[in-house]
Structure formats: structure tokens, C-alpha cells
């Protein structure tokens, strides 16, 4: 389980996160939703340690991540897999090298073992015969799937996904959602997903945290979100004609 306790973060004189306390449960898809600029990306960056929190703490299974030294942080980071919005695959490496990278850096596995693991992870995300391709030769959906394969290659306990569906067509977005859901169930990991895609909310929202103007405004799941009377959340969720019709 990952827990953020009273987390605040300010940039200059603009307070982006205001005393946010939220729990992300193991074996569930924990979604952080909110409008652009609401602070959800900052929250995720605080969770993974890319931003230092001004106030409050981040706990990974009761281990205080925000108070750790670089070396201690490194140990927890090896338990983290992250899927970035654009994939963040290393341009100079092939697909296979990208997936093997965490194993090459942090394990004593032989090349053969690393290659086997990379092939397993790639087949798990339905990528075949693309091992020698470079990221520039992949489509958006393939990049995301390779990034998922890289994120799971070193058996993470925590998986973070930042806008996993951005820039993808609805069908591919659905494939990515299902893949993340399957991996979360299969490996029983704590998955935190940052999204404003309502399809993801309806498909895989086991636990949903709505961030509004830097504050945790609402918590629930994919069922309760459809019947809430929270005005700000309703304005966000039912902003389109399609979702309004769906509600009716």
C-alpha cells in the first residue's frame, strides 16, 4: 500500500497541493483523476520522489519515502515501475535493450536470462518480432506497451502510470487499460494511474481519487462515481454529452 499523508507542495507562490491525504491499495487500480492543472501530476511526481514534498509524508508499505537518503530511496525505486505519458523509452536502445535495462543495472542475471525475461514481458504485452526495433520505429500504442514491459521487467511492487491513454485511439486505449488491469491482478501490485480519460474510470477504476484545485475532493469507485451528488466531480465526469447520456 502507498499512502500520502498531509502532502503539500508549492511552486513559487502557487500552492499546487494542499494537505492531500490519500491511500492507494494493493492489488487495485487506484485512479487519480482531475482537470488539467488540478495537481494530479504533481501528486504523482511527489509519490515517486521526483518532487520533494514541502509538508507531509509518503509511505510505501509504512516506509517513509520522503525522509529517505538517496541510497535508501534507490532501494524502493527498484521496486517501482513507471509508465510515462510519452513512454520515455530510451531512444538509443532497441526495444529489447529498453526492457532489459532495469535487469542489466540491478541484477546479476546473465544476458540469456535477461533476454528471456525481456521476451516474456514483451510477449505479455503482445509485442512480438519487434525486439530489434528502435522506439522511433514504433507506433504510439506499441511504445506504451513496450514501456509497460519495461516497467514490469524487474518484478515491481508498485506501478505508476501517468496518463497511459493520452494520444491513443479508443480501441488501443482500451487495450492498454485492460493490460494494466491484468498486470495489477496477476502480480498483486499497487497500481496508481493518473488519468482524465472517463473510459478508464469506468473500465478499471477500483479506487478513484478526485483532485480538485490541489485538494482531495472525493473518493470512491467506478460504481459510486456514477451516482455522486458532488457538484465539482459531476461537472468533471459528466462534462460531455456522451457521459451525460450514459448516466441517464
Amino acid at each position, binding site marked *: 500500500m502507498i499512502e500520502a499523508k498531509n502532502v503539500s507542495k508549492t511552486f513559487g507562490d502557487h500552492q499546487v497541493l494542499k494537505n492531500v491525504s490519500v491511500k492507494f491499495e494493493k492489488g487495485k487500480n487506484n485512479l487519480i483523476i482531475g482537470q488539467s492543472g488540478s495537481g494530479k501530476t504533481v501528486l504523482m511526481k511527489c509519490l515517486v520522489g*521526483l518532487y520533494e514534498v514541502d509538508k507531509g509524508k509518503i509511505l510505501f508499505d509504512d516506509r517513509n519515502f520522503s525522509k529517505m537518503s538517496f541510497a535508501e530511496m534507490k532501494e524502493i525505486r527498484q521496486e517501482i515501475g513507471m509508465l510515462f505519458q510519452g513512454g520515455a*523509452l*530510451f531512444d538509443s536502445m532497441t526495444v529489447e535493450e529498453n526492457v532489459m535495462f532495469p535487469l542489466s*543495472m540491478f541484477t546479476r542475471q546473465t544476458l540469456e536470462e535477461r533476454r528471456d525475461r525481456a521476451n516474456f514481458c514483451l510477449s505479455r504485452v503482445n509485442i512480438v518480432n519487434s525486439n530489434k526495433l528502435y522506439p522511433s520505429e514504433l507506433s504510439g500504442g506499441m511504445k506504451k506497451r513496450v514501456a509497460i514491459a519495461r516497467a514490469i521487467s524487474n518484478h515491481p511492487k508498485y506501478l505508476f502510470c501517468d496518463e497511459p491513454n493520452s494520444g491513443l485511439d479508443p480501441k488501443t486505449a482500451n487495450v492498454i487499460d485492460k493490460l494494466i488491469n491484468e498486470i495489477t491482478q496477476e502480480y498483486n501490485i499497487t497500481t496508481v494511474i493518473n488519468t482524465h480519460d472517463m473510459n478508464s474510470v469506468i473500465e478499471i477504476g477500483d479506487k478513484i481519487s478526485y483532485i480538485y484545485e490541489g485538494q482531495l475532493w472525493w473518493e470512491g469507485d467506478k460504481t459510486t462515481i456514477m451516482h455522486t451528488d458532488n457538484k465539482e466531480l459531476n461537472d468533471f465526469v459528466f462534462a460531455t454529452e456522451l457521459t451525460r447520456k450514459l448516466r441517464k
Partner: protein
Amino acid sequence: MLRHLGQYLLLMIQVFKKPEKKSIYLNRIFFEMDKLGLDSIGIVAFISLFVGAVLTIQMAFNIDSPIVPIYTIGFATRKSIILEFAPTIISLILAGKVGSRIASEIGTMRVTEQIDALEIMGVNPATYLIFPKIIASMVFNPLLILMSIALAILGGWLSGLFSGLVGSYEYVYGIQFQFQMYDVTYAMIKTVVFAFLITSISGYFGYYTKGGSLEVGEASTRAVVVSSVNIIIFNLLLTNLLLA
């Protein structure tokens, strides 16, 4: 400026932290030698050959006196090439070629979140990205400069020969005349310092890039300008320290 200096020094502390896995870093050093060093051979060779040729012709026209022996052309060409042209001018060219490459590569990695990805995996991105480039350049650039010296002297010999301004015997005698090994040592010391400046400054500007493609371009330009200015300043300092 002080803020940049402080940030640069802090980055260098990060860069020289213990690498996670030595074998990976060794491979990366060889990879960078290929990309930063071997890929520069063509341009360094071309410029050295032609500048050496031009230097000899200019020397011949300027030392056109019956009391100055003709072999002085070879002697002066050699001195200019070893002391200044090869280590300083070639380093300035490398600052343009290698510096912009480093800044744009690392800058692009920053804006596409590849550096964040490294950090989240538990890799020290500053060491992983910048350290191999610094070591590769500090090892390979002296070889490039030695090659540059040899080719520039060869270019001078060829131009003297084909223009008829200096005979082969006089030129060869001139380049051997009062040869001091310390001149080469001085050139190598300057080269190693300049290699460090080029790679670390370019790495710094790339590493702290914020924004998008426009900012990557700006970082690349600033890396070249600041590296070049530092090469010129350190050239004066090192010359004073080593020759004065």
C-alpha cells in the same frame, strides 16, 4: 552566473558519484568514444590538413627574407600547430560538434522524461549520462589532437611542396629543428582540460533543460557558446601556468 556555477558544481558532485554497475559504465565509455571521438575523425582530419597547408603558405609569405633560413617555415608551422592550432582551435571545433550533440541529446532526454525514467528506476542519471562522456572525451580527444598535429604538418608539407614555396628537405628539417617534447605535453594537458570543459558544460546545459524542442535548441547553443568562452579563458590561464 553564480547560480549557474553553483548548480554546475553540484551537478559535478552527482556526476562523480560511484557508478551503479562498473561493467555497464565501461560499455558506455566505449560507446561514447565511438559517438564523440571516432565520429569526429573526419572533420578533424579535413580541417587539420587544410589549415596546415594554409599555415605553411602564410609562413612562407611572411618569412620572405634572405636572412631568415627557409627551414624556419617548417619550424614556425610546427610550433603554431602544436602549441595553438591543434589543441585550442580543434577543441573549439569539437565544442561546436560534440558540445551541441551532448546538450541536445541530454536535453531531449530531459524533456521526453527519459531522465525521470532513469531516476525512478534508481539510476543516478547524472552519472549515467555525463560521466562516460567526460571520460571518453578526456581519453579520446588527445588522440584526435595527435592525429590533428600529424595531419596539419603533413598538409603543410604537401602545400609547400606543390606550391614550390618550401622544399621537402627544408620543411622536414624545420619541423625537427629544436623540437621539444614539452610542447606536445603542453598541448595534451590543454586538450584534456578542454575535453572536460566541453563535455561537463554541455552536459550541464542539457541536464537542466526545461520545456520543449525550442529550449533544447537554446540549451545546445548556450552549451557551445559557454564551452567556447571557457576554452578561450582556460587557454590563457593554462598558457600562463605552463609556459610563462
